[in-house]
């Protein structure tokens, strides 16, 4: 057992396999759909970070772009977050999942045309949804704002992608499972379930009154702390051993973290004083706090795998993924801290809670996905990876942006909370106290926007090089014939 559990990430093909596939063949089969998902993800990241910059400026300078109905704060804020989750994060996750299922299962991606169609549908859905929010058709439920005419498109697209990914998983020739596959497979099913359940209970046949608060909180925490976290952690557990060329420190810690996230991540992290019977926020807080256990497991496993690792040429991709793991711990600890009763009194309703999302989405998920994209994209396109200098510059811009924004608004949120709790401070002065932090966060937002631009440009240049390469090859063969 121990030998199989410590297998290398590529899963060495066993003798039982009649036909052996080279990694190159596998990568080539993924080329079009995975690259399309990556490019679309990069575009939506850029869209979201442009909106994010506007949001950030508006918070301290409300006259910026004032009077434009489509760009009022209450519309671009959800458009920004939804574009980041469904536009960037989900599509990056689809691409990485499909590639990992092929690589770890030693199998080809079959019928990629269907995935191209699904990618098109998904992007149309996101575009319609985003336009819908900006036009004022938001449903009014946080994280589920896409109007009801956009959700069915997303649903169909997701069904196609999900079925294809599961079929690819099923067709694997390497039967031994690596922990990453657990995470990714569970995440695939989980999104389908939470998205359906939340849409049914909030939009198709809405539940009554405050039960909507419960369902929204349930959906949000499952979306961010179970679905995205499972994907991100799974990818971390693949890439850290891969890039350091060592076995994963502990298979059992990885599995324990998996069960922990599944069991404790989705409990809503409700406000202590939400207008609900008190058993609900209490249950949510108690079980949410236990989330600290899987987080410790993830941290220990990453540390253990990395222990004593030194490389003459530090890999910028490894840096991105390590920063992602660090941000995961930060984000989840912020979540846990904010539900502890005396701290909840201060932190609820402040920038601290919204910055938790920032750490999770950008610090954790985006860093991990950027690293993964930089690793995978050159392989599937069969071109040389971008210069390490380019990736390093990009990762530094992203990390600086995430830290400036995250630290400024985490501290800003605490100051805001302390002032809010002191009734001697007039509300307008509470607002005034947040301005320095909001100004600082705009710098972070700007850096994140630049990082988004760099990702898109780097991916496009990779794509161009691959295109030119194909062109040259075909010319060569023509000449030969």
């Amino acid at each position, binding site marked *: 057992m121990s030998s199989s559990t410590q297998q290398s990430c590529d899963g060495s093909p066993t003798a039982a396999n009649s036909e052996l596939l080279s990694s190159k063949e596998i990568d080539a089969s993924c080329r079009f759909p995975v690259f399309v998902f990556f490019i679309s993800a990069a575009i939506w990241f850029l869209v979201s970070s442009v909106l994010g910059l506007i949001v950030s400026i508006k918070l301290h300078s*409300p006259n910026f772009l004032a009077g434009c109905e489509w760009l*009022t704060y*209450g519309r671009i804020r959800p458009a920004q977050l939804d574009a980041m989750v469904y536009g960037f994060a989900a599509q990056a996750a689809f691409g990485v999942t499909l590639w990992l299922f092929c690589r770890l299962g030693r199998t080809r991606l079959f019928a990629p045309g269907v995935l191209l169609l699904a990618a098109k549908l998904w992007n149309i859905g996101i575009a319609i949804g985003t336009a819908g929010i900006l036009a004022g058709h*938001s449903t009014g439920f946080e994280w589920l704002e896409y109007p009801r005419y956009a959700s069915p498109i997303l649903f169909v697209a997701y069904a196609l992608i999900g079925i294809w990914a599961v079929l690819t998983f099923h067709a694997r020739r390497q039967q031994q499972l690596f922990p990453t596959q657990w995470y990714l497979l569970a995440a695939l099913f989980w999104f389908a379930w939470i998205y359906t359940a939340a849409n049914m209970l909030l939009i198709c046949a*809405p539940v009554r*009154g405050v039960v909507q608060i419960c369902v929204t909180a349930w959906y949000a925490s499952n979306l961010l702390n179970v679905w995205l976290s499972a994907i991100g952690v799974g990818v971390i557990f693949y890439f850290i051993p891969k890039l350091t060329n060592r076995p994963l420190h502990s298979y059992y810690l990885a599995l324990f973290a998996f069960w922990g996230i*599944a069991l404790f991540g989705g409990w809503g992290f409700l406000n202590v004083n939400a207008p609900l019977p008190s058993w609900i926020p209490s249950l949510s807080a108690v079980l949410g706090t236990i989330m600290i256990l899987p987080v410790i497991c993830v941290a220990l496993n990453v540390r253990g795998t990395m222990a004593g690792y030194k490389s003459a040429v530090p890999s910028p991709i490894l840096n991105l993924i390590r920063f992602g793991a660090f941000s995961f711990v930060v984000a989840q600890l912020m979540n846990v801290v904010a539900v502890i009763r005396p701290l909840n009194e201060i932190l*609820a309703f402040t920038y601290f809670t919204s910055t938790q999302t920032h750490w999770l989405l950008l610090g954790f998920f985006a860093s991990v996905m950027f690293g993964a994209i930089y690793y995978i994209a050159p392989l599937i396109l069969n071109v040389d990876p971008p210069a390490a200098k380019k990736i390093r510059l990009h990762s530094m811009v992203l990390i600086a942006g995430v830290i400036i924004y995250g630290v400024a608004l985490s501290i800003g949120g605490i100051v805001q909370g302390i002032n809010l709790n002191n009734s001697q401070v007039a509300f307008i002065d509470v607002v*005034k106290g947040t301005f320095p932090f909001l100004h600082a966060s705009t710098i972070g937002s700007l850096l994140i926007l630049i990082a988004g631009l760099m990702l898109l440009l780097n991916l496009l240049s990779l794509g161009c090089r691959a295109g030119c390469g194909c062109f040259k090859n075909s010319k060569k063969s023509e000449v030969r014939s």
Partner: protein
Amino acid sequence: MNYGPLIFLGIFFTMSLSWLGLVLGPNLQLGKQAPEQNEKTGALYPQTRSGLAQQGAQIYRENGCFYCHSQQVGPKGFSSDFERGWGERRTVAADYLFDQPVMAGSQRIGPDLANVGLRQLGDNFLLLHIYNSQITAPDGKKSNMPSYPYLFEKRKIGRAVSVDALKLPEKFASEPGYEIVPRQEARALVAYLRSLKANAPLFELPSLTPSTNVVEETTNAPAATDTNAAQPSATNSTPK
């Protein structure tokens, strides 16, 4: 033996626990909640909002007001909600019974609005605040609330200033010869804000000492939107 399906079921059950606890449980308890009759006054609580206020709730949703304004008040002694005058009691499930969607909010970039209808702010104040919150910010300090000029109409003054034109202070007055008149959307939004009153005495909150006018206030009567039909103010710039 193939443990695949068993593990799959196990994972699914594990993940579903949060659904059982956070969705099914609350829905069993609260999903069939109905308005309650106050034993002393006989009034039903909550009551549906007036048509105009319901339209206003949709304007509130469309413009995402709830991304900055919460609508939930904690119990006395917890945080400073009471000291700030944001509520007379904590908010409970019944207060949201007829809201669709429920917009309780998660941020307090702006003040809580669960009881904004009790604050005697006046229609003109609310309209000015929505038109440009810098006008109504205390002591001329900077507010970071966006302005919503698109909920208002800027039109040429005809024979006389309209009765419902905004009474703008000189600093913010529109160009001479023009007046700012709230559109239907702005009126609806104000009606909604005025209908936000979570102060009815409830069985689960018996410690509350009801004020004398509770009955009147809990009816969520349509906010009188014509209260600003007062005389056209002299501050409004008129053509010279």
